[in-house]
């Protein structure tokens, strides 16, 4: 038994070897660099010369002390949770809708992916265009039905919702396509058996589709979480995190500190970025634990 298991392990790791090499070669250095940036006191000069003094956790303390920390944390949570919930439910609903073939279904499903073909600078700029308070088409449409204009991007009360809506739009195709292939992988025979047992549509969804879709749903949500935590370009292009910090999340804050200024502060920027990595780590742990509980 032990010998067989050993040889199985060898085979498994032989299959994993390419990805392990890949991880070490391409991710280890950037990750190391991000950690190193956050632990040293970088100025532009020491960045170029590579001789920044070790600063311990100073950058992190600076970040925690910053008055922007609390609001940024709250915005990150709201942005992430609201985006995830809507992306996933809309994506799942659309996947269920498209799973029964009808004329044009494959083509329409493909068209849903078109937003992903656009560089984010273009799709996010298009959203700024739509939501412009003076000349945006959304306010023009609201005017037609008799509602007053909304300062989507320029009011601190609305900016976070505007960027969230744009982000949901970007995220729906991803959820749709992954969940759709997940639905396709469920054998039709299972449904046939359930139909024979007289299960109705609702029962079939909750007793068959939902449980069988769980591994794919879990990974979709987890990846969605990681991607949403990381989103900065949409927000950056649409509002620059403003006005007055009202749509600043950790990701945009990190970008502003490190790259969005004439004088970059690499240290605090990297520190904020690493806090996000820690957040993803926590959720990753939850994921791995639930996976192991399911597959003993």
């Amino acid at each position: 038994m032990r010998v067989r298991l050993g040889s199985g392990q060898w085979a498994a790791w032989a299959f994993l070897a390419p990805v392990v090499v890949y991880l070490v070669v391409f991710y280890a250095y950037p990750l190391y660099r991000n950690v190193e940036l956050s632990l040293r006191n970088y100025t532009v000069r020491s960045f170029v010369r590579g001789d920044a003094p070790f600063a311990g956790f100073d950058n992190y303390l600076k970040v925690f002390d910053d008055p922007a920390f609390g609001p940024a944390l709250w915005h990150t949570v709201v942005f992430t949770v609201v985006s995830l919930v809507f992306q996933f439910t809309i994506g799942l609903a659309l996947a269920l809708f498209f799973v029964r073939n009808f004329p044009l279904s494959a083509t329409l499903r493909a068209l849903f992916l078109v937003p992903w073909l656009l560089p984010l600078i273009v799709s996010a700029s298009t959203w700024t265009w739509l939501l412009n308070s003076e000349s945006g088409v959304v306010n023009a449409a609201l005017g037609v039905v008799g509602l007053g204009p909304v300062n989507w991007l320029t009011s601190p009360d609305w900016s976070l919702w505007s960027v969230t809506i744009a982000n949901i739009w970007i995220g729906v195709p991803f959820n749709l396509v992954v969940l759709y292939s997940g639905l396709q992988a469920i054998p039709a025979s299972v449904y046939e058996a359930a139909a024979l047992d007289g299960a109705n549509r609702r029962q079939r969804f909750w007793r068959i589709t939902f449980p069988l879709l769980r591994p794919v749903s879990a990974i979709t949500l987890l990846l969605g979480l990681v991607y949403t935590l990381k989103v900065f370009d949409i927000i950056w292009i649409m509002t620059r995190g403003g006005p007055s910090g009202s749509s600043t999340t950790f990701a945009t804050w990190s970008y502003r500190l490190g790259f969005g200024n004439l004088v970059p502060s690499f240290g605090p920027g990297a520190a904020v970025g690493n806090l996000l990595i820690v957040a993803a780590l926590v959720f990753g742990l939850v994921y791995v634990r639930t996976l192991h509980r399911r597959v003993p």
Partner: protein
Amino acid sequence: MRRVKTAIGLALTAVMLFPVYWMVNVSFTRDENMRRSPPHWFPVDGTLEGYRAVLDKQLPYLGTSLVIGLGTVVLTVVVAAPAAYALAKLRPRGGGVLSFLLLIAQMIPGIIMAMGFYAVFLSAGVLNTVPGLIVADSTLAVPFAVLVLTAFMSGLPEELLQAARVDGAGTVRTFWSIVLPLSRNALVTVSLFAFLWAWSDFVFASTLDQGGDHQPITLGIYHYIGHNNQEWNAIMATAVVASIPAAVLLVIAQRYVAAGVTAGAVKD
């Protein structure tokens, strides 16, 4: 009933693609009408200036983007598929830790990745080259591909793999002739995203290939982003022109996501 569904499907797609329509609308709009309030819903009194600018200059970029996109797909699948098989079915010790690392790998901000690659690529001599950019773009997709393929492959019926083993197939044979064909849907999905990410990537291209002889279409947009002034109709026209060939590819690829692949195999 099926026709009703088509109608609903069309309506949903229209809502989803409205921003894309708006992009098309802007691409035809004259400068003086861009911020008209209320805006024109259709490009009345439009201009083809944006497209003239784009077709003059942008076509070579499309070819490069295509090569980069397809290269990224191949590299991603080659690296990710075996790993996903191992994680899903071979239960390697430490597999959990590896999945975990893959997850964290994706959290590194793109711009930090780009900075890291810059140093590595410079000393390896692949800065400003297409292969270099393919490798960089694949890092967007590989962790995703491994995790998603693992999720799909762990859903493959164990009895199929057992049967193959009984027939005397080794691990490699099982992977090649059973697991891969059965994972067709997942492979198409993963390839689609690998392609899309490479196609629309901006951060890596601008850090690692801005001085290159062959640049992807996303960098073509820079022709219209001046120091103080941006030509938005040309920017949008570039995006429209860039998305047409890729959209055709998507429609074709979606046809290969077929129903009942696993079901058929189980019945056999």
